[in-house]
């Protein structure tokens, strides 16, 4: 592993995203637009449903977006031959993976900063914990999405297949993360499954920040998500083979 090479990969990925204006705008603006839509949906209803659902959405965005973006871009690296070329060069597999994680982590930080600013500043989301901690959760969450995206890209032969992994990997996590039905109110089997899924902890962390704001509970959740991300990167590294058939 070498920091120079990791940063070279990260810098290159960021240049590519910057060049692709439409993707960049969508990455930054879309989450803000969707969270505003959510706020608007509940605008005429009594109660504080936005305060309950908003944090979950803030956790879900970076995860979904980075999952999709990473699985498609790494698949492109595999099929264009650039990955083969890089692996024939003195580039560690971890340099490659961490480079992607750093680049998308930075984008996620920007994305979350905007979404949080809109949620808290304009839409009146009540956050009891420190706002920057929301950002930390979002970035860790994005790294998780990147890690899983890298991993599944190994099992997709086409970009079309890669996109199909979203309903498989992402949607069940959204359904079981506590946004629709509180996790402890789920049927026991589903609760156990929910406990084993990383997104549940990301959403827990966000909700804790908005609710009781017990920081140690938040860090506990963050470390679980981070653990999943590291495991995902390790699995991803295992799918990067220097020698292929």
């Amino acid at each position, binding site marked *: 592993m070498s920091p*120079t*090479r990791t940063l*070279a*990969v990260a*810098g*290159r990925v960021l*240049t*590519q995203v910057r*060049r*692709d204006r439409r993707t960049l705008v969508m990455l930054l603006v879309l989450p803000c637009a969707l969270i505003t839509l959510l706020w608007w949906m509940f605008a005429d209803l009594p109660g504080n449903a936005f305060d309950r659902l908003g944090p979950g959405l803030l956790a879900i965005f970076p995860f979904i977006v980075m999952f999709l973006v990473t699985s498609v871009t790494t698949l492109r690296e595999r099929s*264009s*031959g*650039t990955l*083969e*070329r*890089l*692996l*024939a*060069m*003195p*580039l560690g597999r971890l340099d490659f993976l961490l480079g992607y994680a750093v680049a998308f982590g930075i984008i996620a930080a920007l994305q979350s900063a905007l979404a949080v600013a809109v949620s808290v500043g304009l839409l009146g989301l009540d956050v009891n914990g420190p706002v920057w901690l929301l950002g930390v959760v979002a970035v860790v969450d994005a790294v998780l999405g990147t890690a899983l995206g890298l991993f599944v890209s190994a099992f997709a032969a086409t970009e079309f297949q890669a996109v199909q992994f979203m309903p498989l990997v992402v949607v069940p996590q959204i359904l079981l993360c506590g946004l629709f039905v509180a996790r402890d109110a789920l049927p026991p089997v589903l609760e156990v499954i929910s406990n084993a899924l990383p997104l549940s902890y990301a959403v827990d962390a966000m909700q804790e920040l908005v609710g009781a704001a017990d920081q140690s509970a938040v860090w506990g959740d963050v470390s679980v998500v981070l653990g999943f991300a590291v495991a995902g990167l390790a699995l991803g590294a295992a799918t990067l083979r*220097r*020698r*292929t*058939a």
Partner: protein
Amino acid sequence: MMNNVIAIVDLRVVRGTREVLPGITLDVGPGVTGLLGPSGCGKSTLMRSVVGVQEVRSGTVEILGRPAGSKALRDRVGYVTQTASVYDDLSVAENLRFFARVLGVRDLDRACEAAIASVDLDDHRDQVVGDLSGGQRSRASLAVALLGAPDVLVLDEPTVGLDPVLRRDLWALFHRLADDGTAVLVSSHVMDEAERCDRLLLMREGRIIAHGTPAVIRGDARDIEDAFLRLVENEAVA
């Protein structure tokens, strides 16, 4: 035996159920060596084995006395795949800078400019690769392989589809590099490129059917293509 840059002994490669290379033994020395054969004969698989990115069933491949793909070789062997392995959404210069960083090339700017000049892409250096023609893209890919002055260059059909003038210039480049001590292994399915090589390896159906200088292989045949046909026909009779 410092003469052998690449030494392959009994290399077998099986892809799926097909035996692509049933057991090849060959040596490649300094200079420009052409690997010629029809498409699908296993040239790319052989080159991938040399670079160390091909899963092999058995046999050994050594480059500069080390097993192919070993760590010490990764910045000494330049490799160009058949499709241009560069990033379409980056400019030529950005691609080169990135790969130069990965290779840990010293004097980054100079190395990149020199590589761009070698493949005659100065006028397109700031253009995004995706906007270039096929030939320009493959030259950009070739430029990446030239970074860091590798000791061995493995080029998989680098001249396909290029304008004759450019093709001549690239062959001149290969010979210049060879004169400076780089061993160049170039594949092609166009037999008329044979005459431009110092040595030839003729390949068919996963086997080397002839090797030597173009003059020796040609013998009294009209050209290399003719010699190739005779070899195949003699084999069929025998």
